[in-house]
């Protein structure tokens, strides 16, 4: 009896005839090297990134463990590419899968009624993850101007691969990973990575801020006649960059200068010549608040006063808000009015102050402004 013949310790059956022992050989398992097992996927699946000159090795294990040459005639292995043993014979327990060809290969080993299979999936695919952790969907392909996205080739294939982008910039233009920084203007951006035998792309929709949202914070410092000879107050507003579906943490924003539009009480000098100075650039946080937008983290102090005697009138600064990314030029987003409206006079007067969607109002003889949002 050959030395490597089985002793059947774990499940095979010996049938002893007068002179000879026969063993039933089963396929006990399949092992794979050069690819990664995928959890929670049926059919014993492994995945490997495209690698033009590499192979995945699939090895079947007989039970009992015996040498290739002693496998019964009913032992069969299909799928992939056959390979040879050291002695030049064709291996009956090992097959290769070409990692240079994208697709699915099933390798099956059969012996009698026992059978095992593995699926090898060769991929050449970009995976993407937005660097900002809010919004929570980091797998999105709609991104804000200046936003960054990490890109990898799925399953880290061996080798170095050239990357390119139609706009914006990449942290590296070779390798298996890179980071895309979106351009400063809205457009479609396609990132492409190449292998000597294939290329693959991923397209992003880059969007600009659609607007700036003002929300009421707190009001303070209110006073009105008859306790004071003036009416006025301050309030704090929070400012968000919209929409909330992307992260605008890499933009800067600006307020333009503005010449007032005046009516009534404010039509007389010096008010028509009291301009608003431009300001900015202001930075933005990387936090997106659902329903609001990217939090600028910088509020606005909005307030004013009118001295008795006053009468009906309105003072409005139409302020153009713009944004920029890095050293790019400013892009206008929208005009936001900062508006002061007086009605009545002295003991019956009301001052309403608004900026964007935020605002408060105060009426004599009160000292607590009321939100109008």
């Amino acid at each position, binding site marked *: 009896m050959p030395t490597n013949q089985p002793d059947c310790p774990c499940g095979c059956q010996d049938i002893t005839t007068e002179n000879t022992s026969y063993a039933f050989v089963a396929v006990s398992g399949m092992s794979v090297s050069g690819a990664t097992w995928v959890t929670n996927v049926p059919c014993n699946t492994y995945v490997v990134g495209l690698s033009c000159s590499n192979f995945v090795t699939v090895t079947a294990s007989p039970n009992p463990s015996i040498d290739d040459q002693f496998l019964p005639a009913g032992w069969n292995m299909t799928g992939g590419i056959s390979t040879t043993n050291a002695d030049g014979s064709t291996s009956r327990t090992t097959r290769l899968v070409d990692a240079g060809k994208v697709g699915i290969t099933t390798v099956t080993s059969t012996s009698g009624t026992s059978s095992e299979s593995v699926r090898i999936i060769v991929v050449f695919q970009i995976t993407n993850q937005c660097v900002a952790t809010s919004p929570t969907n980091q797998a999105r392909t709609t991104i804000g101007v200046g936003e960054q996205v990490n890109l990898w080739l799925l399953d880290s294939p061996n080798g170095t691969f050239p990357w390119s982008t139609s706009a914006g910039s990449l942290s590296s233009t070779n390798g298996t*990973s890179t980071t895309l920084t979106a351009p400063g203007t809205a457009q479609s951006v396609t990132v492409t990575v190449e292998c000597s035998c294939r290329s693959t792309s991923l397209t992003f929709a880059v969007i600009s801020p659609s607007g700036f949202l003002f929300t009421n914070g707190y009001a303070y410092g209110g006073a009105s006649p008859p306790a004071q000879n003036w009416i006025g107050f*301050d309030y704090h507003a929070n400012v968000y960059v919209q929409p909330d579906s992307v992260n605008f943490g890499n933009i800067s924003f600006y307020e333009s200068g503005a010449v007032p539009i005046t009516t009534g009480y*404010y039509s007389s000098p010096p008010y028509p010549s009291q301009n608003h100075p431009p*300001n900015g650039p202001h930075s933005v946080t990387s936090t997106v608040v659902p329903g609001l937008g990217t939090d600028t983290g910088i509020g606005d*102090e909005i307030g*004013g006063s009118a*001295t008795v005697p006053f009468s009906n009138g309105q003072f409005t600064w139409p302020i153009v808000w713009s944004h920029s990314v890095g050293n790019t030029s400013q892009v206008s987003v929208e005009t936001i009015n900062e508006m*002061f409206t007086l009605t009545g006079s002295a003991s019956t007067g009301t001052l309403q102050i608004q900026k964007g969607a935020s605002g408060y109002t105060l009426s004599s003889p009160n000292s607590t402004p009321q939100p109008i949002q």
Partner: protein
Amino acid sequence: MAIILPIVDHSFADENSTDTKVVQVSVTNALNDFKQTGDYAYLVKAWDAVSSIKNAQSGIELKLTVLQVCYKARDMAYDPTADHHITLNVTPPLGGRQSLFSGMYPKDIQDPVVRKKFEEDIAENNRREQKLNKERKLQQIQDALINNVRVVLKGQPKESPFKKRVIQLIDSTITEKELKEKLLEP
């Protein structure tokens, strides 16, 4: 002034290319200027320089060096995400004989006492915003460089020799345990 950067004796692919050497000189000069002046604009310059290296396996040591200097330049007692009472516009002291508006020019205020207080309030607001901008920018550079190194590591196969060498470089270049841990987070 001594050169800050160590002599590279374990170069990666293209580490000694002309482009990388040019960047290395730019980074070295910028870091030295930062050391002399304390002006974080030089750190931004160093960051811009290392960001121009487009070969994934080049400039890792330069990036780690800029990261280390940037981390040390941070004011760790300052939280850029906290409310530092910074506003886009400032309201002048209300009342008096003139109707007033937040965001007006100080020169349009007639009362010199009110105008002076308004100018001081604007200057203080600007000072707070400059501090915020500095810390936000340093945080941005730090986060970008950490992300850059982590993406390079994540893109490498498990047993990649390059990956091992980057980990060795992190160990030898980065002195803060917290920063090392961030770089090596899976």
